[in-house]
């Protein structure tokens, strides 16, 4: 499973990828497309990325988490292309023998991914208009 996908994210598959009889705690984060921008109802977001770097950067972030929480195993995916309202754009799943590590590793990878992944959003409005959304 690549770090970038142009298909809908299957959270269940990510969770299965980190599952193991010895890792009793699994924490999943799913970020979904929200509506409610100032300029009108958002119907979808077009995600574009520097794909080669997203793959490398996700790998580095997960390796850092692995160094800090050696028993945690992390899987992650960012969806690219047009993502309709309410559908997941990013998912991070961490499994560990104890829930503390699973929560910490998942949270860390999510925060670093939001901060470091070269991904951009273009909002698509109901009337056909678009706008880059930058935080």
């Amino acid at each position: 499973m690549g770090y970038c996908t142009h298909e809908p994210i299957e959270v269940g598959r990510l969770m299965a990828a980190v599952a193991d009889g010895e890792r009793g705690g699994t924490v999943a984060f799913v970020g979904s497309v929200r509506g409610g921008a100032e300029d009108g109802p958002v119907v979808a977001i077009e995600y574009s990325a520097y794909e080669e770097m997203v793959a490398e950067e996700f790998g580095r972030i997960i390796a850092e988490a692995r160094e800090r929480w050696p028993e945690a195993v992390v899987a992650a995916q960012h969806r690219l292309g047009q993502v309709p309202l309410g559908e997941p754009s990013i998912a991070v799943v961490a499994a560990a023998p104890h829930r503390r590590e699973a929560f910490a590793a998942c949270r860390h990878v999510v925060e670093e991914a939001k901060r470091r992944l070269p991904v951009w959003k273009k909002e698509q409005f109901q009337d056909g208009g678009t706008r880059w959304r930058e935080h």
Partner: protein
Amino acid sequence: MPSGGDVLAPTPRTITVECRFFARYAQALGRDALTLELPASATVADAVRELRRALPAAGVLPERPLAAVNREHASLDGRLAHGDELAFLPPLAGG
């Protein structure tokens, strides 16, 4: 016998780097890539100055844009090498 100096390759006076532009920058520049020739000792900041001088639309690049060299986040005073991939990243908004 020739002296040691004679077998040294000449120090190249210029390097080329492959610039890449994304999202809003690519849209404003009307392109997503450009090969840039720079002095051998150039930094990322030098590349930004050269782009802003050479391309009329490069005003879209802030003086201190987010940049990546060879797919890793890089600081503006990072030195460039021949053949580097230099990417200019609009403010990130992933997730």
